């Protein structure tokens, strides 16, 4: 492990990669601050740049930097404007915004920065410990288990979608898998479902789909419903926190780093769930007099979600780097970028390309440090980006989505596909269909079919399902994950019917 660490350190410390971390964090912070643009859109927009660099470690370092930067930037706009740029930082606004209203914006930003730093760093430490262990287990997996594992991942994502949403999330996943079968499959070399259109021969482009699913609907929502961006004009001063405050938030940071990390590792449960859960847990275990402060500017209430969401971001890298299975929309986009760079994440990544694996981990430490020391003093200036008028902002966002799709394929048809899919995605968003499962399904689709077909060929039929106990176990977990939420909601309703509506 020490060898790997040194290898990672030497890769991550190269001038180019250091610049990538800094650039990624800054870009992420800038754009993440803009309400309505989440890390998924930012990463989707950055992918063409990352891919054209050609160096997978540098690309992943850049994109990971953008990811933490976006979460950090999102918390800045949550605190200053009560307008979270990122779903994962909504919980930060509960206490951050009241603090800013009380004139303690500087203090709130410092707490957010320290909590994010601690969450990210502790998360990276845990990643260093758990990822190698998990990937040595994963090396025992065959294609049958991989197939089953992907089924579990996809069902978990649907299961976390919320009550009454499981079927919708599953349908979106299936739609993503269906879209992945368009074009030539790796195992058969036969064009499928192309309807004779040459442009579909190579399938849909993942960048176009990512842009259409996330960046375009978010930009259109900004157009449809302009968000009020006043505020943030007051000077931000007094960034210091007292020793007593530091002592108060230290245990919160410790607990939430752990909890956030493990929530992040679960597929489907990302930074958003981690931050809300972190907030709720800390409020429940706080002493009575502190409990009343939650929601009115409690420093614990700010530190908890900030730590948890950063730790969860780091945690979500565990399944990506060790199993090659993304647990969230953002890591799914990262996976797509890696595949485009000819790197297949998975248990072999640590053995075959240790410099990528370890340099990403080392860059997490560097990235968190960069965010702490670079952004904290710069925050008052970075917050000025919130003053960019929307009539400049929106055309530029649209332009960058178009450019991203065009550069990837050098094909103008791709732009029409982008607009078409973007419209569909907006309609789906109106009807409350989750979009991340579609993209995750699309990205996993090819791998899932390959593993399924390989297992079928090895076992000459579907007997692999019951002949390999681990595969059977995983598939049972997947069924439980899907059935349990609807069963529970049905039971809750049945119980509710027995109770009279009396007062």
């Amino acid at each position, binding site marked *: 492990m020490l060898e790997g660490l040194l290898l990672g350190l030497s890769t991550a410390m190269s001038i180019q990669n250091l610049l990538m971390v800094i650039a990624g964090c800054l870009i992420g912070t800038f754009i993440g601050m803009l309400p309505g643009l989440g890390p998924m859109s930012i990463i989707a927009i950055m992918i063409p*740049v990352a891919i*054209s660099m050609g160096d997978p470690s540098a690309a992943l370092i850049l994109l990971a930097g953008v990811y933490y930067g976006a979460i950090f930037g999102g918390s800045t706009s949550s605190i200053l404007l009560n307008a979270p740029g990122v779903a994962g930082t909504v919980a930060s606004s509960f206490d951050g915004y009241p603090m800013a209203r009380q004139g303690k914006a500087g203090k709130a930003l410092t707490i957010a920065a320290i909590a994010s730093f601690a969450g990210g760093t502790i998360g990276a430490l845990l990643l260093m410990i758990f990822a190698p262990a998990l990937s040595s287990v994963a090396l025992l997996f065959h294609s049958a288990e991989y197939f089953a594992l992907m089924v579990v991942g996809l069902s978990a994502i649907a299961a976390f979608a919320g*009550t*009454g*949403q*499981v*079927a*919708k999330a*599953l*349908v979106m996943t*299936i*739609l993503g*898998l*269906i879209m992945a*079968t368009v074009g030539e499959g790796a195992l*058969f070399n*036969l064009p*499928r*479902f192309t309807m004779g259109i040459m442009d579909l021969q190579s399938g849909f482009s993942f960048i176009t789909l990512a842009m259409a699913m996330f960046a375009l609907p978010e930009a*259109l*929502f900004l*157009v*449809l*419903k*302009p968000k009020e961006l006043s505020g943030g004009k007051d000077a931000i001063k007094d960034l210091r926190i007292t020793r007593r405050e530091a002592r108060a938030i230290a245990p919160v940071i410790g607990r939430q780093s752990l909890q956030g990390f493990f929530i992040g590792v679960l597929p489907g449960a990302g930074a958003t769930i981690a931050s809300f859960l972190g907030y709720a847990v800390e409020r429940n275990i706080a002493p009575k007099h502190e409990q009343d402060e939650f929601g009115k500017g409690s420093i614990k209430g700010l530190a908890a979600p900030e730590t948890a969401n950063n730790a969860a971001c780091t945690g979500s890298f565990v399944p990506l780097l060790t199993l090659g299975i993304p647990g969230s929309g953002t890591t799914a986009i990262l996976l797509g970028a890696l595949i485009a760079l000819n790197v297949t994440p998975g248990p072999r990544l640590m053995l075959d390309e240790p410099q990528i694996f370890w340099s990403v981990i080392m860059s997490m430490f560097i990235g968190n440090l960069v965010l702490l020391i670079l952004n904290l003093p710069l925050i008052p200036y970075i917050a000025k980006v919130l003053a960019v*008028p*929307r*009539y*400049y902002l*929106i*055309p*530029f966002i*649209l*332009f960058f989505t*178009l450019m991203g799709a*065009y*550069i990837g394929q*050098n094909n*103008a048809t791709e*732009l*029409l596909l*982008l*607009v078409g899919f*973007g419209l569909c995605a907006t*309609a*789906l968003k*109106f*009807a*409350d*269909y989750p979009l991340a499962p579609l993209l995750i399904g699309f990205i996993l689709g090819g791998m899932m079919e390959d593993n*399924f*077909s390989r297992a*079928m*060929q090895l*076992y*000459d*039929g579907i007997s692999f399902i019951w002949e390999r106990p681990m595969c059977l176990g995983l598939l049972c977990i997947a069924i439980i994950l899907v059935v349990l939420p*609807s069963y529970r*909601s049905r039971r809750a*309703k049945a119980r509710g019917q027995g109770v009279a509506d009396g007062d």
Partner: protein
Amino acid sequence: MALDRWIALIILGICLAYGYAAWFTMDGSLAPFMRRNPVWPSTFPKVLSVIGIVLSTVILLGLEKSEPKSADIDYRRLGDYQLWQAMALLGLMVAYALCLRPVGFLISTSAFLIVGALILGERKWYILLPVAFIATGSVWYLVQQVLGIFLRPLPAIFGV
């Protein structure tokens, strides 16, 4: 019928068409030696189509009850929002897609940025024009010179 069920109906249609293609049209052209394989190119799509049909029917019939949520934007009152701006921007994107090759990157992009800002209500030409031109020029320089991806800068008739 609510929008989500209409969408489920459309998805059901897609799954049915996809399933028809997978079950009835794909296997005909399969080479004889591949027929002995336990897995055919149509195997996975067949499974997907069945699951997709079942799930979209579940949504269509409303078997899974969900509590109505207050969405960010209520599509029933779409007229209350800046709908024409959004439509105009979408039209602009299509126009950009069609013009990018024949008109060239520099002209179409500056036009896109200028018209986009105009649609959204910017009227200060002395800021708008320099911003659009500088942004277009620097993006072109970055993509073409730094990243090395070819973007035709001028209209095709100039032969570049």
